């Protein structure tokens, strides 16, 4: 689905430059986003944690176009147009409320998602097969209304519909909380080196292994953006407290290694 050929993403120059998949500039939205500026390179798996907690979700919602920023600019894959002709079909969003009508069957949901993507019948069938396999949706569930499977099936189906587009950017807001931790982790270990994931979570520990970097939003701005490896090197856990402590330490003594890092943070 991506309009960017894989060969282009594999080009050595792009690997060095790492263009921004998601970029927001001076976003303002009430007290939750107050001049938030962030650039997420292609392929980064970024965990966003907020103080207050809602700010991370708000950032995801603004990026997905569900909440409007009072000011600021959002670019995805270098495009500012959120319509289907712009970056509309390059992203997928999965929030805490899956938004699937409970009377629909998983097959109907996926058919609708394919229709909205203008996929050909053959493409739709092939991708449906892939996402059904990835989400471990049992064949006998496919033709029953999702409410019969409860929240776990609804969330699996929502993830399958999101992956149907083979999105370049996946915006996740407290996703798949109805599933057990192991299954959730398996489902969210999405393949694809060029796929960018931005994940808002109130429980960072549950995202261990899923993300490569963490961003801390404090007072509506990016207070810190660091690699998960930096947390581990500092002997800090992947938790709100651990991320907060690292941000405090960096505020006192910014690490020299930050220079030249691909992700740009803070305004």
């Amino acid at each position: 689905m991506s309009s960017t050929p894989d060969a282009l993403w594999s080009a050595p120059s792009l690997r060095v430059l790492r263009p921004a998949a998601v970029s927001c500039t001076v976003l303002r939205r009430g007290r939750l986003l107050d001049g938030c500026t962030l650039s997420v390179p292609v392929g980064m798996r970024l965990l966003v944690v907020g103080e207050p907690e809602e700010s991370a979700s708000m950032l995801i919602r603004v990026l997905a176009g569900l909440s409007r920023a009072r000011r600021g600019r959002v670019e995805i894959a270098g495009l500012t147009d959120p319509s289907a002709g712009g970056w509309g079909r390059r992203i997928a969003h999965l929030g805490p409320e899956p938004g699937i009508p409970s009377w629909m069957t998983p097959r109907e949901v996926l058919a609708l998602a394919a229709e909205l993507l203008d996929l050909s019948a053959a493409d739709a069938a092939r991708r449906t097969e892939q996402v059904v396999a990835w989400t471990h949706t049992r064949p006998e569930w496919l033709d029953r209304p999702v409410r019969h499977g409860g929240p776990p099936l609804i969330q699996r189906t929502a993830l399958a519909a999101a992956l149907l587009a083979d999105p370049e950017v996946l915006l996740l807001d407290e996703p798949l909380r109805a599933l057990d931790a192991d299954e959730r982790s398996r489902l969210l270990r999405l393949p694809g080196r060029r796929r960018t994931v931005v994940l808002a979570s109130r429980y960072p520990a549950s995202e261990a292994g899923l993300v490569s970097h963490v961003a801390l939003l404090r007072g509506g701005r990016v207070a810190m953006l660091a690699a998960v490896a930096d947390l581990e090197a500092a002997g800090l856990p992947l938790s709100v407290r651990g991320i907060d402590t690292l941000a405090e330490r960096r505020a006192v003594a910014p690490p020299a290694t930050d220079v030249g890092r691909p992700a740009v943070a803070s305004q």
Partner: protein
Amino acid sequence: MVTRLAVRELWITFRLLALIAGFIGVGALVALLPAPLPTVMERLALGLGAASILAGALSAWSFADERARGRAAWLVTRSVSRGTLLGGWFAALASLALAGTAVAGLLGWLTASAVSLRLDAGTFATLLVGVAATVLVAIAVGLLIGTLLRGPLAVAATVAIVASLGALAWLVPGTGELVPGAAMVDLAALREGATAPVAGLRAAGAALVGAALLLVVARLVLERAEL
């Protein structure tokens, strides 16, 4: 596509039945209770007014629910524009309500023409068009409120606004046909003998303009609304 989904959602949640039953019930009630022409017309007008309020309430409830349950968000993140979402829901609700209005009008006409042979069909039809346009206003009010408020609050606010418009048309003389609900007042006052169909057309025109304006406002509000 949004219209198709909306109709199915209305069907599954029994709101479609409530909407259709509201209008057809009015016609059936008028047909089943024998009365002289003035009473028949008053019952028909009053019933259609109540059904309009019901249509507005169901619109507000449905659209607020669509937002609250994240279904609107699901569509918008799949490149369905907010305007398409609003238009789809309006088309679904309006087509059902107009079908109900037509059936209620037909039953009302059959009942009235059984009581009096001198009722003017043209005037009755134009007043019914005015009533239909008023129903569209109620639906547009419901959708606008549904973009602003959630759940029961949206329903209560819509009922209050639509009922107030009806009361204004009924109680305040001299509003002409400019206030939505005037078509119901004129329908209630319809008696035997030929009359000019101007009042019904004027009421219909004013109501259609009102509905269009409300939809434009709803579109603008929805553009900034949380989904």
